């Protein structure tokens, strides 16, 4: 279980090798990768800027992994999240889970990706051709009446 903030998302093949090592019972590995899109709400994106609480964010990510392990019975998992400036096409988030069978891997992966976006103290500013905006979780996703704030 590794959870960390990074300047650059690690090599995936190495990550898979590392996850596989934890048990011979692993039959399924599921990976989610977040990529910076070139267009957001019709605006051309120049870059994203990620900021995190350097002490709390890795702790929250590690706790999310432990929770996924307890709830879904996955064998191992890893989360990496980018901090700093990220260009279009850059990988900014990687969540991986390893489990005996595929069903628990799918369930755990989706839940973990949502949890990272809505629970980890990490923030994203979208720098577009028309200005820079702090992006916030959409209300229907976060389950609370939070609107986006423009700066």
């Amino acid at each position, binding site marked *: 279980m590794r959870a960390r903030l990074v300047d650059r998302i690690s090599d995936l093949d190495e990550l898979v090798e590392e996850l596989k090592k934890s048990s011979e019972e692993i039959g399924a590995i599921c990976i989610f990768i977040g990529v910076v899109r070139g267009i957001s709400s019709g605006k051309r994106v120049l870059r994203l800027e990620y900021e*995190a609480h350097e002490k709390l964010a890795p702790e*929250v990510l590690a706790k999310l992994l432990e929770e996924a392990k307890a709830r879904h019975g996955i064998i191992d998992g890893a989360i990496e999240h980018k901090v700093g400036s990220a260009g279009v096409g850059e990988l900014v988030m990687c969540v991986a889970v390893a489990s005996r069978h595929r069903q628990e891997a799918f369930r755990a992966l989706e839940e973990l990706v949502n949890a*990272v976006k809505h629970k*980890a*103290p990490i*923030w994203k500013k979208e720098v577009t051709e028309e200005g820079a905006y702090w992006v*916030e979780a959409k209300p229907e996703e976060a389950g609370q009446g939070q609107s986006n704030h423009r700066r």
Partner: protein
Amino acid sequence: MKVKVRFFARLREETGLSEVELKLDEATTLTDLIKAFFGDRDTREFLIAVNEELVEADGPGGVRLKDGDVVDIMPPASGG
């Protein structure tokens, strides 16, 4: 008592503050402190940590502060 307050991301830009040291009455609660900066805004609009532990500002009885505490006031998560 003296308390350090740090602001993150959008809230740092909104307040124009990164980090401030405050001298407070002993009776000041976390809710009072947030109100001082953000008025009546719903505290659920923030993630709050005291001494780098996440807390519920509106928990039962409120959160007491003590000398030397570091309070982090953060926007809701928006990573990914």
